[in-house]
């Protein structure tokens, strides 16, 4: 009896492993997408200049609102362009502030880009060296964060698209009626 079990043990383990791999293959989890370790931690402070009016970006003032979206973008980033429409949609919502962080961009290119596509951001901080991005654990733009009462609640690595916009909105709605 035990021998029989032992005989089938290797092949059943093999099929179990195949099943697990198959599940991981077809499930939507993309293993190259990293979870943010900054979830439920305070939004990292930074010093920067504003893109549009070239004055100092006052972190404490700009991050004083309850619900904020922070979007890392750049004029050279192609997915940012398609994402832009969704950022616009979000910026039309009430009681929601959208802050942009312009990542390693050329100032004139960025302004030109915003002129063409419209500026949905209430304030844009310049991150010329990409150091703010490192502090925020960003590894590839575009990335979008939901900040609630100064704490990071959600991070989306990669663009907001037709596909994930609803999921993003659901995430956002969690903090509307608190």
């Amino acid at each position: 009896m035990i021998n029989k079990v032992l005989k089938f043990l290797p092949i059943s383990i093999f099929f179990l492993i195949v099943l697990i791999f198959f599940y991981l293959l077809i499930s939507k989890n993309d293993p190259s997408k990293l979870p943010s370790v900054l979830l439920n931690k305070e939004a990292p402070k930074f010093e920067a200049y504003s893109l549009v009016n070239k004055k100092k970006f006052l972190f404490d003032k700009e991050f004083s609102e309850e619900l904020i979206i922070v979007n890392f973008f750049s004029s050279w980033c192609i997915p940012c362009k398609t994402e832009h429409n969704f950022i616009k949609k979000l910026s039309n919502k009430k009681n929601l502030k959208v802050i942009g962080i312009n990542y390693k961009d050329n100032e004139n290119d960025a302004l030109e880009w915003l002129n063409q596509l419209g500026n949905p951001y209430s304030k844009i901080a310049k991150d010329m060296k990409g150091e703010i991005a490192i502090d925020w654990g960003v590894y590839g733009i575009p990335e979008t964060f939901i900040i609630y009462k100064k704490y990071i609640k959600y991070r989306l690595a990669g663009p907001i698209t037709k596909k994930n916009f609803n999921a993003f909105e659901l995430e956002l709605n969690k903090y509307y009626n608190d």
Partner: protein
Amino acid sequence: MIKPRLNFYIFILLIFCSLQIISLNVNSIEPEEILENKELELRARSIFKNTRCLVCQNQSIDISTAPLAKDLRKVIRKNLVIGQSDKEIYNFLTERYGDFILLNPPFKKETYFLWFFPLVVFLLGIVIFYRKTSKKF
């Protein structure tokens, strides 16, 4: 006629194979990045070798040419210059990017399975081997 030719091709093939090994040692550190203090530079390089590039995820930032890897190298060197210890720098990295950024996974509760599982399988193998062989005699 054929034999020496074949040897010649094998010779050429081996040369190319050996070049491959040499090319593995090439890194993407750019000359203007290098620190003047040799001791600090050595420490920086050993940290780079253990830091994953998050863009091309199976490379270290020591060999990656991705812009983010370059930025991380800059920040790490900057922190070394202001006198941070290796541990402080690793903390800096994991606070932002998690343990995933370390190519050498740390030994802690979450990674017990990772570290002990091969040992468990090995011991199980010994037990099975012992049982199978001892039955015969």
